[in-house]
């Protein structure tokens, strides 16, 4: 069952009604856990078995660590999770690369349990928090629910137990939670089934980002590469932010507030800001549990920069063991270091660039860099990425497209519309202070919701899958 299926539309209300009928906290937690395991088991019973083992072992490791929080005990827990992730996520990829016969048969047949990277990082954050002696006393049911909670089990957001535990114990949805939850679900479905789908698969056969990267094996012009980078950046955003909206909305229906995962990332004016707006739950996880402990290890500036690059490479590696992801991570790290160096230079030389100009220039540089780095992320291999970058520096190729004119126009329209909507939203937020405008917005909202729902129903003809499910 995935979040775009009709089964999910039936599953959520059924669990909601049942959880309203159960008054006791423990009863409700057991219901949610059962629902989560049922939801996960619809993907595969084998996946559920891995999740169960991970939950029980991590819970035991947490108790073991709580009794005596030493670095050695922490490393046992970290080692277990790395082993789990390595076995199920990285080994199958390496096994494919090695070819048949290099690994024992049972290892060659391993498949990636969906969401393993997300819930393993959640388990790790629990162990780190226990090591830091945070006040955490989850029951086994609560801990299992934390890892398996069905809205987040497939692709996050990567949650932290200190945020969820009090909510598992006291969540009581009010009307605002329900309206906000439904609004987020509709918004998420629209972003995924309409916008991301249009960019990813195009409107007609032979169009779309996937076609551009997978079917056109060579022969892109510089203009094509720019459009593909733009298209993929927005496809990823609408896909993952749409997914996050559905997840956050679903949890909200049950009175649970999950942390945000995206906050207008393409409006960022620096790479540092970008990473506080894009896949926030993972970037904050990396910051808190990898970068900060590493950076504070040695006082030298070069070490902090090195730690930043290592942390971002790990960010890339988290997506998979492909060289494209690791290089993408390294590029992000280098860009962050370059930005820090620039800030230091600015301070040292006491240069003052007008704030407006600095924002525009910062936005332009960040936006362009992020888009181009998506080429490395999305390319099927490094050779493809190199070919695409070579096309970028062949200026003679900019006067025509291999991609269809329709797809080019659609990508540009969607990108421009994104910025227009972001601007209009800011305007609307200001206008909300005026009661009359607020009433007009409220009165017109059924029109917007029905338009969104109609587009979702029509576009649901395509069997869409979330890009991030593969991670």
């Amino acid at each position, binding site marked *: 069952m995935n979040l775009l299926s009709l089964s999910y539309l039936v599953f959520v209300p059924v669990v909601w009604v049942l959880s309203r009928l159960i008054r006791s906290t423990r009863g409700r937690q057991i219901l949610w856990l059962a629902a989560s395991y049922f939801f996960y088991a619809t993907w595969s019973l084998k996946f559920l078995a891995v999740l169960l083992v991970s939950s029980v072992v991590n819970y035991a490791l947490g108790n073991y660590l709580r009794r005596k929080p030493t670095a050695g005990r922490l490393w046992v827990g970290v080692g277990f999770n790395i082993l789990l992730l390595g076995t199920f996520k990285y080994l199958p990829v390496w096994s494919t690369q090695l070819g048949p016969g290099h690994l024992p048969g049972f290892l060659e047949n391993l498949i990636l349990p969906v969401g393993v990277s997300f819930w393993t990082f959640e388990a790790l954050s629990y162990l780190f928090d226990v090591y830091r002696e945070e006040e955490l006393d989850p029951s086994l049911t609560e801990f299992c629910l934390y890892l398996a909670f069905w809205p987040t089990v497939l692709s996050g957001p990567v949650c932290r137990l200190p945020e969820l535990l009090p909510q598992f114990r006291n969540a009581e949805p009010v009307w605002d939670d329900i309206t906000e939850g439904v609004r987020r679900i509709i918004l998420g479905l629209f972003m995924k089934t309409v916008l991301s789908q249009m960019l990813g698969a195009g409107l007609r*056969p032979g169009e779309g980002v996937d076609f551009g990267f997978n079917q056109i094996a060579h022969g892109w012009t510089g203009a094509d590469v720019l459009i593909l980078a733009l298209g993929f950046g927005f496809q990823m955003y609408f896909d993952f932010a749409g997914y996050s909206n559905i997840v956050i909305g679903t949890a909200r229906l049950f009175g649970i507030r999950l942390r945000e995962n995206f906050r207008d990332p393409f409006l960022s004016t620096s790479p540092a800001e970008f990473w506080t707006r894009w896949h926030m739950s993972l970037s904050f996880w990396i910051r808190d549990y990898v970068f900060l402990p590493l950076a504070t290890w040695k006082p030298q500036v070069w070490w902090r920069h090195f730690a930043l690059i290592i942390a971002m490479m790990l960010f890339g590696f988290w997506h998979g063991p492909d060289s494209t992801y690791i290089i993408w991570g390294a590029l992000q790290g280098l860009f962050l270091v370059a930005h820090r160096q620039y800030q230091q230079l600015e301070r040292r030389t006491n240069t003052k660039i007008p704030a407006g100009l600095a924002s525009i220039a910062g936005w332009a540089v960040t936006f362009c860099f992020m888009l181009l780095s998506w080429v490395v992320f999305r390319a099927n291999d490094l050779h493809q990425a190199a070919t695409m970058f070579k096309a970028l520096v062949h200026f003679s190729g900019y006067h025509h497209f291999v991609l269809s004119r329709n797809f080019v126009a659609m990508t540009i329209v969607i990108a421009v519309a994104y910025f227009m909507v972001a601007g209009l939203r800011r305007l609307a937020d200001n206008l909300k202070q005026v009661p009359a405008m607020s009433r007009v917005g409220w009165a017109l909202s059924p029109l917007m919701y029905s338009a969104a729902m109609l587009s979702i129903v029509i576009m649901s003809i395509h069997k869409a899958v979330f890009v991030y499910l593969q991670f």
Partner: protein
Amino acid sequence: MPTSEAEIETKRGDTRSSPQGQTRVRAVSWIVLCRRAYVPVFSLLLTILLGNWLAAVARRNIELKAEERSQREAVARGAGLSAADLAVAQAVFTPADDSSARASLLYLGDSQVFSRPDAPSGSLNTAQWLQILLARQDGQAARVHIGATPGMDIPEMLLRTAASIEPPSSQHEIVIIDLALAELRDLGVRSEIQSLVEEQGVSDALRNLVAANPDLADAAKTLTPLLNKTAAGPDGRVVQKSMADRMEDELQARAQGWPLFAQRENLMALGLLRYAQLEHRLLHISSADLIPTPAVPYHTNLQVLELLMRYARSRGIHLILFFGPVRDLKPNPDAPADLARMRLDVSRLCQRYGVTCLDYSHAVPEAYWANYAANQRGAFAMMAGQHDFYHFIEAGHKLLAEKLFADAGPEILRWSNAAGGSQ
């Protein structure tokens, strides 16, 4: 307007304190309830109403299309056509189940094969004329069946061919391809053609074909994802659906009861058409604008064509390929260099695999080409009043069929005799 829980509670608290306030509490509660219900109720209502209206629009469009199709397929009593001619011409559009014919011929191509934009209803297309000419020569020789679809590309031709040759269909012995440059520009396969490979025999045959021809890597890259979408797994084993999948299928089937849900595909098609019309108007696109032929789809299509030729040879299928007529006007959507390159590349392939290759690029004179009517409606409304560079009138179809019959007729008759003899 109190919408948040806290605001409402504050208001209730204020009014509840006075005895007269009890009635006011009830009134405020009703107002709050109505205000809360307004957005969800009206959103749902609008969605249902607009959805039903859209579904009705889509249905009307389908009815119009069906009407056009029946007009296209209807055979009128033209000059010099006997009842027998009309009967065989009509049968070209129906599935080839005529066991009286010795051989069966699949006619592939895009809309050029059957479209006669300014011809009256009931006039005949190339495939029908070819059928008449063959039947006149030998009534039992070959049964022609149209497998052409508007906008067909080469992967679609391969899938269509395999679906008609492999079990359970096992129909055709001869395949004719009307090749146009436009067919080498795209690489998509539409769902209706994709569904043809859901038969186990067809998907197995195509999987084996791809595996046996690793040198055609780009073709494999295009076909493999299509084959992996079928009910059978990548290794050919039929994948058992899980309980969750079966539940989802059941829900999807039930959802078809809502007209909007049932008409999604038609609405998508209609939406795309309107979008294309808008695009043409905004970008001032005309039928004579040059259409580029991107290198990669072109080369991949060529590889798929080569795969089709190898497939035909391995199955003992006789293949005839001809370059479809090109309108000799300038400006023209097909660049002369692209056309020349296509003729050269495809001729080489035909030579290599012993495929009959005919060139009818200049077979249809200017007088027989069609133009879009000034009041053109339907799919080509955005081309109203412009030259049609791909379709010709019935006289053009007849002329082309006569040329095809003169050049390939003897071969077709010989093959059908051989097929009859071997039966």
